[in-house]
C-alpha cells in the first residue's frame, strides 16, 4: 500500500519519522484522516490523539496538546506543543491538568474574550488527555 512520510516533532525532540499508510490527526475543526497524496494544507491542531496506521493495522497512538500540521502529498509534519505516547499517559497527571485548567478558566472569567477562549481550549485539551488516559 502507498505510504507517506509522517514526522512528529515536539520542541524538545523528534518523536516519530517514518513512512506510514494513514494518520488521523486532531484538527481544530474535527479529526481528519490523512492518506498519501492529500492536498497541501496547513492546519491548526487541538488536544487529542494521533493514530497511525501501518500495514493495515493501527500501530501507534500518541496524545498531543495542540499544535500545527503541514500536509503535502508526500509528507505530513506535525508540530506538537507536547506529545506523549498513550501508553505512558498517567491518569493522575491528566486529572491534575484538568483541575489546573478549570481554575485558570475560572480566573479568566472577567478577562478579554480571547483570553477566555484560550483558557477554554486548554481545558478541552486537558479533558481530552484525561479521556485518552482512561481509555488506555
Amino acid at each position, binding site marked *: 500500500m502507498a505510504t507517506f512520510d509522517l514526522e512528529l516533532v515536539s*520542541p524538545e525532540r523528534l518523536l516519530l519519522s517514518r513512512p506510514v499508510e494513514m494518520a488521523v490527526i486532531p484538527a481544530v475543526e474535527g479529526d481528519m484522516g490523512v492518506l498519501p497524496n492529500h492536498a497541501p494544507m496547513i492546519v491548526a491542531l487541538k488536544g487529542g490523539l494521533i493514530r497511525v496506521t501501518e500495514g493495515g493495522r493501527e500501530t501507534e497512538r500518541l496524545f498531543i496538546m495542540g499544535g500545527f500540521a503541514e500536509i503535502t502529498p508526500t509528507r505530513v*509534519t506535525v508540530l506538537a506543543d507536547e506529545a506523549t505516547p498513550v501508553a505512558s499517559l498517567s491518569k493522575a497527571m491528566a486529572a491534575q491538568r484538568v483541575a489546573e485548567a478549570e481554575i485558570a478558566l475560572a480566573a479568566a472569567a472577567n478577562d478579554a474574550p480571547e483570553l477566555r477562549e484560550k483558557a477554554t481550549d486548554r481545558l478541552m485539551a486537558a479533558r481530552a488527555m484525561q479521556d485518552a488516559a482512561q481509555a488506555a
Partner: protein
Amino acid sequence: MASLKDLRGRINSVKSTRKITQAMKMVAAAKLRRAQAQAEAARPYAQRMERMLASLGAAVADSPEAPQMLIGTGRDQVHLLVVVTAERGLSGAFNTNAARFARARIRALEAEGKTVKLLTVGRKGATFLKREFASRVVGEISYHNVKRIGFEQADEIATRITAMLEAGEFDVCSLIYNRFQSVVSQVASEQRLIPAPLPANDLTAPAGESPALYEYEPSEENLLAALLPKNLAIQIYRALLENAAGFFGSQMTAMDNATRNAGDMINRLTLNYNRTRQANITKELIEIISGAEAV
C-alpha cells in the same frame, strides 16, 4: 624568603585548588555534552516551524490585518532588549561578553534617542547591567533553581513578551545572547524577535516539491496568530539552549586553563621548595664542618 613550612602549605593549597578546577572541568564537559544533545534535539522543530512560517508569512505579509508580532507596531521608538546570560560564574568572560555587548547596544540606541527597556534572563547579566542601567530594567528572570532548562521556561518568557507587546510597552524586541559557535568560541550576538524576520520563501521548499499552494484551516490570519507566539518561544528556547551549551563550553575552557595554571604554579613552588631545602642543608653542613675545624 619563605620558610619551608610556608612553601609546603602553599603547594598543598594549590594542589587542592587544582583538584577542584579539574573536577569542575569534568562536570562541565559532561553537562556540555548533554546541553549539546538537547540543542540538537530541538533543531527539527525549529526547522519545520520555519518552513511553515515562510509559506504562511508570504501569504499574509501584505494584508493589513497581519498580526503585530509579524509587522511590528509601525514605530521604532521603544526597544526591548532581552539579555540572556548564565546563572553562575567561573566561566571566563562568558557573562561579561554578553553583558558588555548589551551595554554597547543600549548606549548606541540611547544615543539615537530611543527608549530602552531591559528584560534580563540569568542572574549574572542582571547584576552587571543593573549597576549602570537599573532604571531601564523592567524585569528579571532567573532559573537558578531549575535543574534543566526546558521548553516550559522559554514559553514563560515568550508569554511575558507577548503580554508586553499587547499592552503596547515596546515597538521592537531583540534578543541578546551568546551564540554557540564551538566549544571554545561563543559569540555575543543580537537577534530580532519582533517584528519577526521572515525566512525567505521558495528556497526552503525541498527539491522536487513545488512551493505548494496550501489550503489553510482555520484562516491564514488565525493560524499565523497562533504560530507566531510559538515561533517566539522557539527562538527563545534556542537561545536558552545555546546559552547553556556555551556556558558549559566556556566553563570547561576556563577550568582547563585554571588547572594548567595550577600545575605550572605547583612546579614553580616545588622547585623553589627544593632549592630552599638544599640551601638549608648546605648551610647546616658548612656550620658543622666549620665547627669541627675550629675544635
